[in-house]
């Protein structure tokens, strides 16, 4: 069987919608939303920074849930493990974008690219944890072994997310407290800014779903290739053996 694409009509619709909404977010962020009264134009970084952070959280929670199902179903199917791995990869990508955009915003607003304050430090810790998770996934060549080890890490690593999110409440931080997902429920953004921010969340969510679907299908094909390769090797070995007996 030859597979030339991991796309389906559904993924094409998701991809198209993602492109459309991302286009709107770019136009709105750069040309329609106003500058902030204190930050000026640097506020526009928020429309990428905040959604990438939230979607990274979503990705890591998805990894944990899929890992939970993988463990609960005793690895009878590797589908959940593949979703867990794909989601973690996309989460790490988004978390890297969060760190980069946050660093740029920090330079413009705080006057520094980086400080070891609670929010920045815990975010970096979360990022490094999932880089480690992805590294562990690559240690085992056997998919079932991979699923067993990585599931445990995923279920533990997700506990870091509340620590990251509430770090600005638990400790004194240079990073401001949440403007939307805060403890008092007040939203501290002007209307159009908030709408563009949520458009960004929708766009990045669609991109996340699109990437995870494609990535887990690629992993499936990769695992399949490994099995087919093993079959071919055994067949070749048997042929060699037969030739040796008849010679």
């Amino acid at each position, binding site marked *: 069987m030859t597979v030339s694409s991991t796309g389906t009509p559904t993924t094409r619709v998701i991809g198209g919608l993602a492109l459309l909404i991302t286009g709107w977010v770019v136009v709105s962020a750069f040309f329609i939303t*106003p*500058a*902030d*009264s*204190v*930050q*000026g134009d*640097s*506020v526009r970084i*928020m429309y990428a920074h905040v959604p990438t952070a939230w979607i990274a959280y979503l990705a890591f929670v998805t990894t944990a849930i899929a890992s939970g199902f993988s463990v609960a179903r*005793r690895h*009878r199917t590797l589908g959940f493990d593949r979703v867990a791995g794909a989601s973690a990869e996309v989460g790490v990508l988004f978390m890297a974008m969060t760190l980069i955009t946050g660093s740029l915003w920090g*330079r*413009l*607003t*705080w*006057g*520094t690219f980086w*400080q070891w*304050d*609670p929010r920045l430090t815990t975010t970096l810790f979360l990022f490094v944890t999932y880089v480690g998770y992805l590294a562990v996934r690559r240690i085992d060549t056997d998919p*079932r072994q991979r699923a067993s080890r990585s599931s*445990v890490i995923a*279920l*533990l690593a997700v*506990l*870091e997310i509340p*620590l990251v999110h509430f770090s600005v409440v*638990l*400790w*004194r*931080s*240079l990073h*401001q*407290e*949440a*403007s939307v997902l*805060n403890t008092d429920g007040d939203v*501290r*953004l*002007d209307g*159009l*800014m908030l709408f563009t921010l949520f458009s960004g969340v929708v766009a990045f969510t669609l991109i996340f779903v699109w990437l995870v679907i494609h990535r887990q299908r690629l992993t499936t094909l990769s695992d399949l290739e490994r*099995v087919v390769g*093993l*079959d071919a090797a*055994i067949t070749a*070995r*048997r042929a060699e*053996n037969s030739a040796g007996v008849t010679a």
Partner: protein
Amino acid sequence: MDLTPREVSEAPRPRRRILPAVVAVLAAVGGLAVVAVFLTSSVDYYCNVDEVGVRDGCADDQRLRVQGNVDEGSLQSRAGQTSFVLSFNGVSLPVDYEGEPGGVFQECIPVVAHGRVVDGILVATRIEVKHSNEYKAENADRLDQAEKTACS
């Protein structure tokens, strides 16, 4: 010899040990709690102006990170030297900084100054703006109102 491959599912599956997994989760949660308690007691990013020389970890004979609002009318820039007064909870601390603070530094905004207190003045080597979590459209009337509120 039959080398017919696969059917991994037919291989005997090792018995799953639940107890070690539960212990590992409890240990991780406990570890996080310990880290949280540790961080709470010693890794606050700054001391407020009114805590300098009063609160544990804010002794005025050591290098500090001090947070407060820049007093209205206190900002002076002369020959590459920036001076202003930092206030919080009714306590003020003069700050001297060599250079131009970066970011969106201005009066009536919270900042964190890094440095040492010498003769009652914080000699800062770094100034960071601590932005609030409010985002408002740029508008002259609003800006005036915000500054009045922040400095009142």
